[in-house]
């Protein structure tokens, strides 16, 4: 049976065993790490329990843990009380994020009205994140909701003295922002905030202090960046720090946009590339001609494909979990076939037909590939494997691949 190739951007079929998640998941993914703010989920206990884990890390999360009575008669009184208590327990918070869930959406709670009321009373900003789980095709809808809710927080500010940038759509998985900051600081560029990998509530208000926005994940944050451009004249630049050629090109673009001396930029690139090549040279022949299957979220598909290409891999197939057409256009040149929203059976069928030498997939699905005996690398990575961005990240990525590919366990499987 041939592999079924699905177009992107369609809603998933019921019973198709999708890996996609809900809008609330997406909103939590983006907004979860914002500090100096109270995060409050208005919904049953489960949503609060699961939402506390964002990118593999436990975050501070309040919940209203609705019970049957509140579902029937309305939970706004409980929510009002809960918000006041949350502010009393976190007196240093400058504002609050108020998440709606499926239940809230269905019983039709007026969160915006309540938010205005508490705003007046507590003199703190309350951001309503309207993210009932069913209100979109996948978590991508939640990313969009989250960024839209952040937009009204940003206020006009005078520009900073030093060349300053914001990193937009950079989620700081395993400290990726640290490596990006290191490179930019070597060029004398300051990073104002990492949205939303490492940011505070008050920093979002002052986003317009920067001279330039660097846009990392285009599919989640492009709308936000272009809105900032429209409102505050803050230009944005799409960059990627995955893979050597992409980092070099991105650094050059940043240097040009901020008017840095090109000798400085070229010097940095040459110096770092030499060091990187020295570290990874001996491993490159291990990767030559190895066949990879990639099943990932969305935005990382293109950059990862490029990075694998640079190392000598052949990407025999790629599947996005919730990719947009832009993600697919970016990934198309690198992969044998490209599909969207594979079910569990389709993933297994692809494995059995293609027999890849390496599988790169997300944290949930990696175990399926492992169980069927394929060397598997999960991506986004765990913290201990270090960041995969920038030059140091490239070295980390190579070492992760070497560890996976050389593990004797894959050769031991037959008795």
């Amino acid at each position: 049976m041939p592999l079924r190739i699905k177009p992107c951007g369609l809603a998933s079929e019921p019973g198709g065993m999708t890996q996609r998640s809900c809008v609330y998941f997406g909103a939590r993914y983006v907004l979860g790490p914002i500090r100096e703010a109270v995060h409050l989920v208005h919904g049953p206990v489960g949503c609060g329990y699961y939402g506390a884990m964002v990118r593999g890390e436990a975050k501070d999360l309040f919940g209203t843990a609705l019970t049957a009575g509140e579902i029937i008669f309305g939970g706004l009184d409980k929510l009002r009380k809960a918000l006041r208590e949350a502010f009393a327990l976190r007196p240093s918070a400058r504002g609050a994020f108020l998440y709606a869930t499926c239940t809230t959406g269905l019983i039709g709670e007026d969160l915006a009205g309540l938010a205005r009321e508490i705003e007046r009373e507590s003199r703190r900003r309350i951001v309503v994140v309207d993210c009932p789980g069913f209100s979109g095709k996948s978590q991508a809808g939640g990313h969009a909701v989250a960024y839209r809710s952040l937009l009204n927080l940003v206020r006009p500010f005078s520009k900073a003295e030093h060349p300053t940038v914001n990193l937009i759509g950079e989620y700081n998985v395993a400290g990726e922002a640290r490596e990006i900051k290191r490179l930019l600081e070597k060029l004398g560029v300051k990073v104002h905030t990492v949205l939303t990998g490492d940011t505070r509530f008050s920093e979002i208000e002052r986003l317009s202090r920067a001279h330039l926005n660097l846009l990392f994940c285009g599919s989640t944050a492009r709308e936000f960046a272009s809105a900032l451009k429209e409102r505050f004249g803050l230009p944005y630049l799409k960059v990627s720090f995955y893979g050597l050629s992409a980092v070099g090109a991105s650094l050059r673009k940043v240097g040009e946009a901020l008017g840095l001396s090109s000798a400085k930029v070229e010097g940095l690139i040459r110096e770092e590339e030499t060091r990187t090549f020295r570290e990874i040279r001996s491993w490159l022949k291990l990767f030559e001609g190895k066949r990879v299957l990639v099943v990932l979220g969305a935005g990382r598909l293109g950059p990862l494909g490029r990075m694998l290409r640079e190392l000598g891999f052949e990407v025999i197939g790629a599947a996005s979990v919730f990719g947009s057409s832009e993600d697919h256009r970016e990934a198309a040149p690198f992969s044998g076939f490209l599909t969207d929203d594979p079910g569990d059976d389709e993933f297994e069928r692809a494995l059995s037909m293609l027999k890849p030498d390496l599988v790169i997939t997300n944290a949930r699905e990696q175990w399926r590939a492992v169980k069927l005996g394929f060397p598997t690398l999960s991506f986004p990575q765990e913290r201990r494997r270090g960041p995969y961005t920038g030059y140091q990240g490239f070295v980390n990525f190579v070492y992760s691949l070497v560890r996976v590919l050389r593990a004797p366990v894959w050769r031991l499987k037959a008795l």
Partner: protein
Amino acid sequence: MINHVSEIPIEGITYKQLRIEKKPLTPEYVPPPPELVPAAKRAVCIDPSRTCMPFGAMWATLGVHRAIPFVQGAQGCTTYVRYTFSRVFREPASIATASFHEDAAVFGGRKNLIRGVRNLVCRYKPELIAIVTTCSSEVIGDDIQSFLAEALDLMEEEFGPEVLDLTKFVVVNTPSFAGSHVEGYNRAAREFLKALSRKSGQPSEDLYFIPGFLMPGDLRELKHLFELMGVSSHILFDISDTLDCPLVGMPNRIPYYPPGGTRVEEFVRAGDAKAIFALSPDAGGAGAKWLSRRHKVPAFVLPMPIGVGNTDELLKTVSEVSGRPIPEAIRWERGILLDAMADTLHYTMMKQVAICGDPDFAAAATRFVCELGMIPTYILVGTKSSSAAEEIWKVCEEYNYKPVIMNGSDQFEWEYALKNDKPDVILGHSRCVNISKEIKVPLVRFGFPVYDRIGYQREPIVGYRGGERFLARIVNAILDHHYPDDRTHQ
């Protein structure tokens, strides 16, 4: 703070005099306003120690051979749970979703269920589909039974009557706002038996067990005990070979189903069983009680077999019901556990211990730590449960302790108490790591969920051998932490 530790009945010496001196907390710690500490007086819930009902129903379903849970709700209700299973077991968990979008919210989930069931049956050919409802489908008021009947009618029209024999269906109503994962498992146990079990009139000698949230290693330990006893036992919702199975390589048939799990026929024959045992009163008790009401199968709702007393109770009951004596090999195992307890009593005696867990785990662990001579101080029962609270009171009265029981509270209140009165050891799940680091008290992981340690799911804590390992884990934590420089152990 409350001096909850009663005077130990040893002349002249109180526990406080024996203790290592408490260190003050880190200076950054700002105590919350005291009126907001008790969870009962708060509207806001912080760090709940329980999760949603569908999770429990999915756990139960994944313990059935070639069964797929079908979640009638939004995609997140599935993905979050899959993520939790992956983290805890490091195994794939196939869970299907009805993919609720805006149209389902407006028009109801009828179309989603009909199409979803058809897709699942055609593509995965499961032996059983458990339809698990969620908050959203319950709020909309989906009539699952009639939707399912319609779906079956349509499939019969399309594929012929033989399609109806292919797959069995069970419907479990699990709105998260009415309980927690414990209640979800409980309901699943009842609904599975309700939908599948039959009484053929030919009584068998088989004993049935509903384990609750026991891990694969625990289930294997139970099977080992029953094998030694020589009783024919069936464990319902047996996740031991579905959520912990070997690296298989490419299977012959795709989609891949793990081998093992309870067969559908075992559920069907449950009506003829000699007896049914619920090993967790709160997770599975309802199933056992239903079977005894409906099919007159004697039901025994016992505490989880952790520690000496609880395991004794289980084995004695099994022995009485089956008429088989407890063999020498099991007495030997029991002796080894007692020996280990005697060997290590100097480390465990009079150590204060705080416990956090699901009701059955918390109650059973309380008895075990009391048997070890430890003093339970603050016990957080994640899901509100009167039976667990009663059991804990019973144990503590026996041993003359007066712990603070936080029944159905959240971790915030428990942590506040621990910060004011540090215990020597914490027994709890992986979500207690932060408090353990903050107050610098070792954490012994047990219960659900444990995702930050390798091999927890394979190492039993039930039975005598499991008790010995659990004891070793507790003592090693104490050794590492309270006697780090003691060279006599090295």
